[in-house]
């Protein structure tokens, strides 16, 4: 099972992505998609110019960026959640532990009331995601304790601070336009995704995930405790900072793309641990694939289930919470 899990999951992701490309409010017959693919590949003339531009619009400008977004967000949150769980030796940790999501939320809200440019909003989101983690790390440093506990406490303090700051921004926001926009954005949804943003963020997200995955063996050792990791020859400080930086980067970028998508980073690592075991060298890539599949499916549900779209973040929470209860029942055995 363990050996073939990753190729199987990769195939599953490709299949789900292709099906997602086909699914949509505007029904595109499968024959048309195939003809379109044929035209793209070899330049056949089965489709009229009008049809071609329509399909280009629907598939490439609307559906594909959204599919990419779901894949990257699901994978990033799952990978950073898994990495944090190993780093903090605690399977109940989620990517927001050090305050990155609170900071990014604040940054997004602040950007929305101060600037009309969406790019500025995105920059502010990323900036404050990093700022929040910076605050957490600094608090841990002030007490000159390099312990994990101080870092966690720093994260709690930083998260609380940026959550309060977000409330201030909401309170100061114009209640007729800005406030609903902020609230809606923080619910987490992928309907506003655009191709240009996706092109911009996909490279850093992919690289971040790859480097985290390559640190799987080191994370295994880190999860045995700091002193053991050091005695196994690991530069604990450097690995810890690398993991925190990359997890912060990819988590903040998920907020840049789609707001707050909750619960993925907590439940997917659990599910994957049940599937492939706790070895981070396998677990991290498995989490990336399963997280991507999960968010793709959830996003399809949220855009197709009703005549109106439900924010994806709400659906992930609604599915995530009861699922987590089920998972806990089994999971406590594997990590206690």
């Amino acid at each position: 099972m363990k050996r073939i899990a990753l190729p199987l999951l990769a195939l599953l992701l490709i299949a789900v992505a292709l099906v997602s490309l086909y699914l949509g409010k505007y029904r595109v017959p499968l024959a048309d998609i195939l003809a379109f693919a044929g035209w793209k590949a070899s330049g056949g003339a089965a489709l009229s110019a009008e049809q071609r531009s329509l399909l280009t619009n629907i598939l490439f400008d609307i559906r594909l960026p959204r599919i990419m977004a779901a894949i990257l967000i699901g994978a990033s949150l799952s990978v950073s959640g898994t990495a944090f769980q190993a780093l903090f030796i605690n399977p109940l940790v989620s990517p927001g532990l050090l305050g990155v999501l609170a900071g990014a939320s604040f940054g997004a809200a602040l950007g929305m009331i101060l600037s009309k440019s969406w790019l500025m909003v995105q920059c502010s989101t990323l900036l404050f995601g990093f700022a929040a983690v910076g605050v957490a790390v600094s608090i841990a440093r002030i007490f000159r304790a390099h312990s994990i506990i101080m870092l966690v406490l720093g994260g709690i303090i930083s998260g609380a601070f940026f959550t309060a700051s977000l409330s201030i921004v909401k309170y100061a926001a114009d209640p007729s336009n800005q406030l609903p926009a902020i609230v809606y954005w923080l619910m987490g949804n992928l309907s506003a995704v655009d191709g240009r943003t996706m092109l911009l963020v996909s490279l850093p997200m992919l690289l971040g995930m790859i480097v985290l995955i390559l640190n799987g063996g080191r994370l295994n050792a880190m999860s045995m405790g700091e002193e053991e990791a050091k005695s196994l020859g690991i530069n604990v400080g450097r690995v810890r900072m690398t993991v925190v930086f990359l997890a912060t980067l990819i988590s903040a970028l998920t907020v840049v793309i789609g707001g707050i998508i909750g619960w993925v980073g907590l439940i997917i690592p659990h599910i994957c641990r049940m599937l492939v075991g706790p070895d981070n060298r396998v677990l991290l890539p498995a989490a990336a694939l399963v997280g991507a599949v999960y968010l793709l499916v959830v996003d399809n549900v949220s855009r197709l289930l009703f005549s109106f779209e439900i924010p994806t973040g709400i659906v992930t929470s609604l599915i995530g919470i009861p699922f987590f209860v089920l998972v806990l029942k089994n999971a406590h055995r594997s990590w206690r």
Partner: protein
Amino acid sequence: MNALIQTLAVSFAYHGRKVLHEVTLDFQQGEVVSLLGPNGSGKTTLLKILLGLLKPDSGFVHFENRLLQSYPRNALAKRIAYVPQVHREAFAYTVADVVLMGRMPYHGFFSTYSAQDREIATAAMARLNLLDLQDRAYTEISGGERQLTLIARAIAQGANVFIMDEPVNGLDYGNQMRLLRDVNGLAKEGLTFIMTTHFPDHALMTADRVILLKEGAVLADGCPEATITRETLRALYRIDVHVAAIPGYNGNGRVCVPAWAL
């Protein structure tokens, strides 16, 4: 000057509380050294200093005549292995995965475990009769088996110095004796062991040399028969203990029995 590890006037304090006072010790290649001392005598601190996990506030630690701190972490990991107290971790890695972690120091950033690493890990497990357990979760095996797993990891690390913190802590009597027997077996192959213990009997069973630590200073240092005596045990633990030799076994067969039990 040919000691494997040498501490020179090493002092260490935790938050202003002095734990070690100018400790100067030599450790030779192939020695089995037991560190005895009451709680808070600085045993574990000394181990962590020998491992390079703690930096002495003053004094020096040399490993093969070079400053310990001048070694990069992974170079040190190939030479000195740490076998911590039995612990239970959050994640259920298999025994084989835990032992494979011993190969960490042999890898650069991008490389993964090779077939050779797996062979070495398998050999280490075979040496301690752990092969039947290799696919079991580390969290689900017994304390003695966990300790053996950590020792197998230290073997896989390729180290020739094993630093063990109370290796029998939390084990039942049978597992304690089996573990000490295994340690003795490994010691005969020329590996160096430095371990802490709370049991003078265990030091008598395993050690070539015993170091008694009291309040961060060396009280006695020498062969077990000379160091573990009624007088030193009284000084160390404030309790009257007879050290008796079993007739017919010269030197080795010694046991400690507290006076109140006689």
